């Protein structure tokens, strides 16, 4: 669909494509500076221990070693969320095996590595909190001295309407427990960072990061420097998926070392260390209680989630809220209750991974719907079509939905997969499963409170006709540079090749909050369009005067500016730029974007709102062998509501990449730990921190994928566009599980869905038990009194009626006025 656009909707080679495939892109590890030194980190072998002392004398004496540091050199804590400032560059308390406790800076990596073994660390070993049940049962020892109590980091309880009544009034109530195992991002590029201090003492950090702005803020705090004297450059990332959106200890370490030594210092992590940085998918245990009418309408849902946070806060508070946020945007859900609890454990910290926090409950919700359809003898596709959320509506938890292309997505995958003929009709061992999903187009609220734009873009136009666009957004492989250049070129009627972009550099570009929450196309896109339109206006003013036509009649296309009524009458873009510069002086413009104000006014309502929501439906076909449980996926059909497709090559790439990642999560990926008998060793380590043994599909395992893009332009989206980077992942895992049921009649209510779990479920069924493999119970959690937020249709205004803070504020106001 091109709708009169110059470029939008047309497949093109991405602007950075050639340099990516010809090794022309400088990733952080490709950088090298004169006199550069190398850094290695000594990581704790213990899952939980206090560092009593560090004796570095032998390491310092090792030839080629320049510096050894420990936590006393970097005492100030930092963290991505203002409420979780709980990490140190080098830690005083090791909270997982792999937590860095000391650093060596040496002439080369090998020397630094050798010196690690020469450092003597005296540890006080502490008892291990291995699993969430341990965290709930053992308040001591506390992994952190903050959080709600003991090893509970955060609990939340929200109620939107009389959900108990809704379940009582239902014809049938479904009560299901699911488990989503943790997994990691596995970007191709391992994190690397290079820090240098110039002769004036100003600091520059080049890093593999998705969030240079947040790194900039954290550095100012930890280095105790004026942020004006720090520059953070996000090098193009070789994949991020959320794994590079935190602020990392190794970034702090190289900055500090560069300042101490006055020489550039680089660190390039090994693959093992990337597993320790983690910030990946939280393992989540969840319980869904859902009431339905006989015709398959939901009366209400109660959701509980137990979220295993690992060793640090990271984005965890947001991740926790996300496990309860987006249940309402796909289907009509009139009454809803969410209770969630995030705990600390002695494992590498969890954080945001593609689909941040919404993936796990989506898995549960979509399988439960399949169970409901089966029990009520309804077609799962039709049942969903009959309960879709409404466009331009407000949900029970006050999320404002714009366009919804989900109905069309379902119809397209149903048609393409032959669902109506093949579902429930395939030979034994073969099956189809359907599931849907929805995702944000950018978080409505920044990570730290502020009233400034979320994204800023600057344009500079040169006499040569070349345009340079500056923006703080970061290219992590997803194609954000291409989106940026594409919008500017579209508005100015020039070729992408005429536009140069400078991105992700806090010293050179206006702030963009970073590449996370699928916010870039939405926010940077709107900012870029605004900047480009402002520039177009300037140029049009000059050209209108020169050609003596009204500015409103001018068209910018094919590198020309011309009269719409007389296309011959016009001039090349370069000449138009020259006329404008002569008339207005040096040309420049800016644009910026902040999301609309949210409708939610209750505590915790900041997580979930977004300018728009994308939608996806998928059908997965599986082949299951009854004797071995072996499962393979021959084909996947997926349709994604993208609002408007900018560059279809990139958009399809994102969808197919999501299918790939989703199948990995569905079938094999798991970030798991191994506990050693305490009388023999007591170790508690990541089971397989390697790319060979942490199983993720290869190109050969990728099935045929049928991809469709549904375009239902959203009024908030730049030219109608919505996100495509994360949403298409969501339906894949539950669709696989649902297909297994169609194939062999058993349920695996957890991921990964492995042959041996299928076989166990088949064994149980053969014995006459429930044909199911999955978690059996949800542990006791002391939930706080729920915040009562009446949904819009119950006369609510987005506020909690029983918020103790609000009551206190109201009382204060009363006292004051009396």
């Amino acid at each position, binding site marked *: 669909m091109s709708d009169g656009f110059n470029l939008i909707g047309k497949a093109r080679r991405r602007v950075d494509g050639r340099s990516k495939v010809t090794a022309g892109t400088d990733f952080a590890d490709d950088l090298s500076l004169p006199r550069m030194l190398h850094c290695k980190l000594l990581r704790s072998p213990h899952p939980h221990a206090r560092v009593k002392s560090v004796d570095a004398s032998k390491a310092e004496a090792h030839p080629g070693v320049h510096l050894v540091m420990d936590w006393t050199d970097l005492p100030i804590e930092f963290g991505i969320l203002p409420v979780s400032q709980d990490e140190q560059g080098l830690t005083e308390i090791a909270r997982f095996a792999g937590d860095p406790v000391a650093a060596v800076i040496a002439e080369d*990596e090998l020397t630094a590595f050798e010196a690690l073994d020469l450092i003597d660390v005296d540890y006080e070993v502490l008892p291990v909190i291995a699993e969430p049940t341990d965290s709930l049962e053992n308040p001591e020892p506390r992994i952190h001295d903050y959080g709600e109590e003991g090893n509970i980091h955060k609990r939340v309880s929200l109620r939107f309407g009389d959900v108990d009544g809704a379940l009582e009034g239902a014809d049938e109530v479904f009560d299901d427990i699911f488990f989503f195992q943790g997994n990691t991002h596995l970007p191709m590029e391992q994190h690397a960072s290079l820090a240098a201090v110039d002769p004036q003492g100003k600091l520059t950090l080049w890093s593999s990061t998705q969030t240079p702005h947040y790194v900039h803020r954290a550095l100012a705090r930890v280095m105790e420097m004026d942020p004006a004297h720090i520059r953070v450059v996000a090098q193009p990332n070789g994949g991020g998926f959320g794994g590079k959106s935190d602020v990392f200890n190794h970034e702090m370490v190289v900055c500090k070392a560069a300042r101490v030594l006055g020489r550039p210092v680089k660190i390039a992590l*090994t693959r093992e260390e990337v597993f320790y940085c983690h910030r990946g998918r939280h393992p989540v245990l969840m319980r869904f209680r859902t009431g339905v009418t006989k015709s398959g309408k939901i009366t209400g849902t109660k959701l509980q989630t137990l979220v295993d946070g690992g060793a640090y806060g990271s984005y965890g508070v947001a991740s926790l809220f996300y496990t309860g946020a987006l249940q309402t945007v796909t289907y009509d859900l009139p009454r809803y209750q969410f209770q969630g609890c995030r705990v600390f454990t002695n494992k590498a910290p969890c954080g945001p991974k593609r689909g941040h926090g919404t993936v796990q409950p989506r898995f549960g919700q979509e399988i439960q719907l399949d169970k409901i359809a089966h029990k009520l003898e309804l077609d799962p596709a039709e049942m969903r079509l009959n309960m879709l959320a409404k466009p331009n509506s407000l949900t029970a938890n006050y999320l404002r939905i714009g366009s919804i292309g989900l109905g069309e997505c379902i119809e397209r995958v149903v048609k393409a997969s032959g669902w109506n003929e093949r579902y429930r009709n395939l030979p034994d061992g073969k099956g189809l499963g359907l599931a849907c999903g929805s995702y944000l187009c950018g978080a409505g609220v920044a990570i730290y409170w502020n009233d400034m734009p979320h994204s800023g873009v600057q344009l500079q136009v040169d006499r040569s006709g070349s345009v340079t666009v500056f923006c703080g957004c970061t290219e992590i492989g997803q194609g954000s540079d291409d989106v940026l250049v594409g919008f500017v070129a579209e508005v100015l009627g020039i070729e992408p090749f005429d536009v140069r972009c400078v991105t992700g550099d806090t010293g050179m570009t206006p702030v963009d909050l970073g590449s996370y929450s699928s916010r870039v196309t939405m926010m940077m896109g709107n900012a870029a369009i605004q900047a480009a339109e402002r520039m177009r206006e300037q140029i049009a003013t000059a050209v209108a005067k020169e050609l003596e036509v009204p500015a409103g009649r001018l068209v910018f296309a094919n590198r020309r500016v011309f009269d719409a009524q007389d296309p011959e009458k016009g001039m090349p873009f370069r000449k138009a730029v020259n006329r404008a510069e002569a008339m207005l002086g040096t040309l420049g413009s800016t644009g910026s974007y902040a999301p609309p104000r949210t409708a939610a006014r209750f505590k915790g309502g900041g997580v979930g709102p977004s300018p728009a929501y994308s939608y996806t439906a998928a059908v997965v076909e599986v082949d299951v062998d009854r004797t071995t449980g072996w499962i393979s996926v021959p084909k996947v059909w997926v349709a994604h509501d993208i609002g408007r497709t900018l560059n279809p090559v990139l958009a399809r790439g994102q969808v197919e990449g999501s299918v790939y990642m989703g199948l990995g999560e569905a079938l094999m990926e798991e970030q798991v730990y191994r506990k*050693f008998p305490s009388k023999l060793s007591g170790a508690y380590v990541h089971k397989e921190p*390697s790319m060979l043994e942490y*199983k993720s599909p290869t190109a050969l395992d990728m099935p045929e994928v049928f991809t469709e893009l549904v375009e239902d332009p959203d009024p908030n989206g730049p030219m109608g566009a919505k996100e495509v980077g994360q949403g298409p992942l969501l339906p894949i895992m539950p669709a696989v599980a649902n297909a297994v049921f169609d194939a062999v009649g058993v349920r695996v209510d957890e991921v990964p869905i*492995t042959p*041996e779990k299928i076989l166990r479920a088949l064994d149980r069924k053969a014995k006459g038990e429930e044909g199911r493999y999955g978690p059996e119970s949800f542990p006791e959690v002391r939930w706080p009194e729920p915040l009562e937020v009446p949904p819009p249709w119950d006369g609510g205004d987005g506020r909690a009626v029983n918020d103790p803070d609000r009551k206190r504020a109201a009382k204060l106001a009363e006292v004051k006025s009396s």
Partner: protein
Amino acid sequence: MMRLPRFRYLAPTTTQEVAEVLASEGPDAMVVAGGTDLLPNMKRRQQTPKTVVGLKGVAALRESQNGTGLRLGAGLTLTEIGEDPRVREHYGALHQAAVQVASPHLRNMATLGGNICLDTRCNYYDQNYEWRKSINFCMKKEGETCWVAPASKRCLAVSSTDTAPALIALGAKVHLLAARESRELSLEELYNNDGISYLTRRPHELLTRVELPDATGWKSTYWKLRRRGSFDFPVLGVAAAVKFDAGGGVADARIVLGAVASSPIVVSEAAEMLVGKELTDGVIEEAAEKAGRKAKPMDNTDFVLHWRKRVAQSFVGYALRELRGDDMSETRWNTAKIRFGD
């Protein structure tokens, strides 16, 4: 990135020179062929030879020759083995095993000799130095305990070579060259069921070539179980070779299991019971069950132990049914993402 430790590198050009270097350097020296096993192991400090003897320049190791059977130099790459029409036509199991090793890039470097001498594997051992240090190491390197079976006196690391089971099923012999005396032994005899001293090869011996006997009348196959269609080591390998008589009955048979012990396991009972019979469903099932019982995997590879044990029988069945002439291509594709014979 992970860096190699410091070592001395020697690059002889004849097999005799290699043998002499090995004789004079003693057990602190190791040869490196493709390096796809040794170099990662050195980076993880699992193997730390003081001297590394490169075989790349030894042309004699890259020769192959027809005779009554086939002679393959130890230095041939697995890509070359996989593409060799003689291997594909007469020694199907070897072809199938070679093309399923690791990934295309690795096969371009990996050699036949290196695959035969591949270090045994265990997921408590195939970890970097820091990881192993945090568990106090294990018996195979620097530690005392075997984490797989703390009561075990011996290391239970897994023989993970794909080509060895195939070669044993095909009746291969290997030639070991030493400065003083050289010897030839059946490949089966090269292995010990011990995760640490898994080879009977002495440190000063160089494996120069593999001898395959004439394969007239034989059909062979190799089935590999692994999580993914590429890249992974076997968690089970089944090599089967059957010689059919004129009437379609079995005249001779060999079945060898890989990745279920510290050496390839020859399951003669299962093979012997096939002799004189036709490969009916019943016969196949019985043989598969017999062979499957020999699979005693330990909990130190991918997949859950009891499941691996349980499916061994199925895979032996697949192999025998394929040899009987059944079309097993769909099962092959679903489990291994590979098609043969097109």
